[in-house]
């Protein structure tokens, strides 16, 4: 856990990417830096290049120009990649490609075992991860016979058990019910507070605008990189970019369109309720 002590950093320097055989670039000059313990949401319309950017950051794809530095080490170098791989974990959109073993518990252990950790440490991490995600009841089941959402939970558990310094999740909760969605978000928030950098790709969350840092990707570029609720104008910009801003913001905008004057700070339901109580009593 050397990196945590030194602090994790991910630097993306003017990265371009084109899939082999394709004509057009999918990622067109992205530059940004990510620090330790940040919790970032990445969103954008379909085909914007979110998944591609995620794969680049995790070193699954290599940029065809530009650089990606993990803890200062250049990702394009094979030897560096071996070193940085344990630090950057990724969960793909389709969990099936990452499930390896014949039992849930064994599958969660697969990653930690590859890190060659002592048995008791592997066991501890597996138990903790399973407990946190709340899939204890599935422990003995074979992964390929689980329901879609259950497999998604398992893929997340397996990546958490490896305790990477940075975890990238591609639509991790698309098939989860609200309770599990909420739980996973809480787990990830806890991890972030303990120093793990978390990057979540999602297109449908209502909680998006409550993140400290939001990236919006459009046509291969990052066109928004800021705290959503920092400036009054931000929310409008985000909404204009086709992002789901959640029920409260939607309601606020709809009311404004009707000519109702709303204070701009209403972002959560609590705030909305408070405002309405004041106005309607």
């Amino acid at each position, binding site marked *: 856990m050397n990196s945590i002590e030194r602090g994790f950093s991910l630097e993306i320097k003017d990265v371009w990417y084109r899939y082999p055989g394709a004509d057009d670039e999918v990622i067109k000059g992205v530059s940004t830096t990510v620090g330790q313990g940040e919790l970032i949401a990445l969103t*954008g319309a379909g085909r914007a290049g979110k998944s591609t950017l995620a794969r680049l950051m995790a070193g699954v794809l290599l940029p065809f120009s530009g650089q990606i530095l993990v803890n200062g080490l250049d990702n394009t170098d094979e030897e560096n990649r071996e070193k940085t791989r344990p630090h950057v974990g990724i969960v793909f959109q389709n969990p*099936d490609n990452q499930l390896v073993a014949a039992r849930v518990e064994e599958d969660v252990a697969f990653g930690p075992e590859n890190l060659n950790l002592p048995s008791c440490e592997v066991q501890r991490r597996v138990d903790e991860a399973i407990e946190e995600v709340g899939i204890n009841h599935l422990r003995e089941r074979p992964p390929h016979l689980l329901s879609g959402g*259950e497999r998604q939970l398992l893929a997340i558990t397996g990546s958490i058990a490896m305790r990477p310094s940075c975890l990238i999740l591609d639509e991790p909760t698309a098939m989860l*019910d609200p309770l*599990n969605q909420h739980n996973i978000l809480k787990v990830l928030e806890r991890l972030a507070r303990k120093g793990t950098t978390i990057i979540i790709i999602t*297109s*449908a969350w209502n909680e998006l605008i409550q993140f400290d840092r939001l990236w919006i990707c459009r046509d291969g570029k990052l066109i928004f990189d800021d705290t959503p609720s920092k400036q009054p104008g931000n929310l409008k910009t985000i909404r204009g970019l086709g992002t789901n801003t959640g029920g409260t913001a939607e309601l606020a905008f709809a009311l404004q369109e009707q000519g109702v004057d709303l204070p701009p700070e209403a972002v959560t339901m609590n705030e909305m309720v408070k405002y309405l109580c004041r106005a309607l009593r």
Partner: protein
Amino acid sequence: MEMTALKDIKLNIFPGEFLVVAGSTGSGKSTLVQHFNGLLLPTNGRVKVLGKDTTDKKHRNELWRLVGMFFQFPECQFFNATVYDDIAFGLRNLNLDEKTIARRIREALAIMGLPDEVKFAHPGKLSDGTRRLAAMAGTLAPRPKILVLDEPGAGLGPKDKKIVFDRLQCLQKSSGVTIILVTHDMEDAAAYAERVALLKGGQLLRVDKARHILADTGVLREAGLRPPYAVELADRLRQEGIHLPSMPLTVADAAKLLGSLLKQKAGD
């Protein structure tokens, strides 16, 4: 492994309705809907589609013409080198001529809001959302009477999602297609469903008109779901002593109700 995924389910689906099947993760939604095209047969009890039992061999063999099935992981649904060939697979089994097939594919892709070039693409090289939409086009193209869609909105952005659901509703309203939609997002149910069936632990918790179920926060919470935003808001306001004249289901409803209330108040 042997386990009972569904238990004691009694459900009538009416022709031409928009039914949402909802429930928490692992509650048996996918298992249930796979009974509707004869893919799975009940170990006990019976499933009748258009009046005939799915265990009837002849009926079961013809069921695919009537019931279009969109799977939860559509990436597994592709088995051809291009999107075109894949959509054409179902159409060719209907013995349509190539010209009709080409037209139907063009139409189906357009319905899903996809550019026409997508048909030349290799399914594995599409983004996940696009692949989902293309797979849905493949389900629509044979024009089944009953459409079963297992979480079609998962991973789609709000814009794509709205296009898809609006088009589905349009099909239902204009052509009388029965739509059975699996989801856990009650906002979708609020905007589109006529009836909602709630599953919990493989059992049918309740099935009723959408506005009854969606307004009942208790039963939704019991099913592990979250009520629509508007309902939750109305609930919170009621606790604060503010009663809305009617129960809003969608954010748009709520905006209309609250807008007129607020203006009235301001006018006083």
